[in-house]
């Protein structure tokens, strides 16, 4: 099988005594939309900058289409970037900005103009071609930055939180533009963001980073349902994490003593649990059932409502168990309305036997 388009092999980056990236190992396939996500200072931008050649790895090797990139100057890689602040040249017009990358490659003026106009047209801003940058709106600048980066037809486009400066409305629209563009062009997009919704909405796979370490590389679905470790489970935000100790092992299931009481969990044959083992279980907020009456199911607990938070069509609820432990629950708006759940004083929550996801024990 052909090697992946981009390969990071044992890449380490240190700034003085600060370890920015700790032994990154991953591969990106041609045409993939990869997200790199994490809080600020986690090293996600450093990964992108190393790929663009703006930082040199301290150790390890980065390859693009099988070629070692480490020593190649940024100007000699075709890895254009869309910057957080867009970095458009204020002294050039819209068209001249787009032409810049063609000019550096020695393409003749007529051809440059033609190709720049094609891209501006594609980004639906052809009529703005002779404007100055300061005359554009945020969304228009975004499109210029994209056209400028894509005009050289690169194999990979690097995006460093390009939507962070836009208002919510525009973010959704630009997400659509980016996703469509990536599908049409079929080139690799590497998208750095701290926004989960952006990453999950657009990418094929995401890298979750924390303190320079790659915590998980997986699809959004997998990160969401099968987090690799406690950090990822917490990072996703809508997970409840229960610590517990195995108290009994039955056929195909274990009983775990947790902060909120005994929980029975179905386990696969591969999981080799012993009594007294410590386990961490993840229960997604959206997989918890809520009712105003006890239903008699196995994993059912009494609770009272602390707060509710309106997140569009979904309501985020925070409930408290009788022993004071807080649990996050997400329910569609209509379901709560139907049962008048938020009006009742005492509630019961429960989940199926196979709902809890047990974190890998070596994590």
């Amino acid at each position, binding site marked *: 099988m052909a090697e992946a388009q981009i390969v990071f092999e044992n890449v380490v980056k240190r700034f003085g005594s600060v370890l920015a990236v700790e032994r990154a190992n991953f591969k990106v396939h041609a045409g993939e939309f990869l997200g790199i996500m994490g809080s600020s200072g986690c090293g996600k931008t450093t990964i992108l900058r190393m790929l*663009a*050649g*703006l930082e040199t790895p301290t150790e390890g090797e980065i390859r693009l289409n099988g070629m070692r990139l480490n020593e190649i*100057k*940024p*100007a*000699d890689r*075709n*890895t*254009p*970037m869309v*910057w957080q*602040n867009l*970095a458009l*040249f*204020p*002294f050039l*017009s819209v068209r001249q900005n787009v032409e*810049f*990358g063609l000019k*550096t*490659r020695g393409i003749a003026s007529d051809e440059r103009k033609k190709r720049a106009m094609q891209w501006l047209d594609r980004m639906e801003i052809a009529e703005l071609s002779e404007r*100055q940058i*300061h005359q554009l709106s945020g969304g228009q600048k975004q499109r210029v930055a994209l056209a*400028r*980066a894509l005009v*050289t037809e690169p194999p990979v486009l690097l995006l460093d939180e390009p939507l962070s400066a836009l208002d919510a409305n525009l973010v959704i629209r630009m997400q659509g533009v980016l996703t469509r563009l990536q599908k049409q062009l079929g080139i690799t997009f590497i998208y750095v963001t701290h926004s989960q919704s952006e990453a999950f909405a657009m990418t094929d796979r995401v890298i979750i980073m924390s303190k320079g370490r790659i915590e998980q590389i997986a699809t959004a679905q997998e990160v969401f349902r099968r987090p690799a470790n406690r950090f990822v489970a917490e990072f996703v935000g809508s997970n409840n994490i229960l610590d517990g100790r195995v108290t009994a092992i039955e056929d195909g299931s274990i009983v775990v003593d947790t902060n909120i009481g005994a929980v029975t969990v179905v386990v696969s044959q591969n999981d080799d649990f012993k009594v007294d083992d410590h386990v961490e279980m993840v229960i997604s907020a959206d997989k918890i059932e809520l009712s105003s009456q006890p239903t008699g199911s196995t994993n059912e607990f009494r609770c009272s409502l602390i707060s509710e938070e309106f997140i569009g069509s979904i309501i985020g609820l925070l409930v408290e168990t009788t022993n004071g432990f807080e649990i996050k629950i997400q329910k569609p708006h209509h379901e709560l309305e139907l049962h008048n759940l938020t009006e009742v004083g005492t509630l019961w929550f429960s989940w199926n036997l196979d709902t809890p996801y047990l974190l890998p024990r070596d994590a």
Partner: protein
Amino acid sequence: MSLFKVDGYALTWRLPLLVWQSIFFIGPLVFMVAITFFLVKNYRMREAFEMINWIKMLSRGYFWDSYFLTLWLATLSTLTATIVAFPASYALAFKASATVRRWAVFFLIIPFFTSYLVRTFSWYVILAEHGAINAVLSWFGLGPFTMLNTPFATIIGYMTLCLPLVVVLQTLSLANVDKNLIEAAWNLGAGWMRTVFGVIVPLAKTGLIIGAVICFILSYGDFVAPYYLGGSKPPTLSILIIDTTKSGQQWPRAAVVAVMMMATLISVAFTAVYLAYRRK
């Protein structure tokens, strides 16, 4: 709505500057222009309104010799300072740490603590026929070269006056260039030359032009360097002013030269500031 509505608050803050400029700049300037129409009889200035001073000065070849010499020397000085300063400023702005840059700016200001005249005379010792440079060159069997009383020495003098200032101004404007834009240029395939001249210079344009124009103004009006180092043959305009006042108390004709100098400087400065702040 009145066109002459007075904003008392703004006026209060601007008043000191307005008063200062009126008393020490606009007033004397008007007076100087007026003098150009006065007459000198028996070594005394008389109030009059005659064009004779203008006609006499502007019809003389020596005036225009001085005028173009001064213009040429100031232009040469500006170009030299701008070109010589740029690599140093570039290194300070992009290659040095913030601490090194602060110290460098400090050391560049230190020469201004000493008198310009003293600094000029120290060049006299260095550039003279038996001065320091020729002494060193003679060890290699070279020279002696005549450096004093040449345009070369004048430019050296101008550099003493301007170069540190130009480096400081260039450094400050280059250090303010958005590093992201430089990286964006590399990222789009720009080599070193294109990044410097196609991105950094346009971004630092305002500071670079202001540095150049200050150098031009200082060199254009200076008389110390062309007089003591350049030998004043032919004289620059500032030396011509001195010569004119000395010969027959011709203050009105000196004023003509001064007004011509002012007019030239104002148009150069105006054009430069226009170019510096022009936004396409």
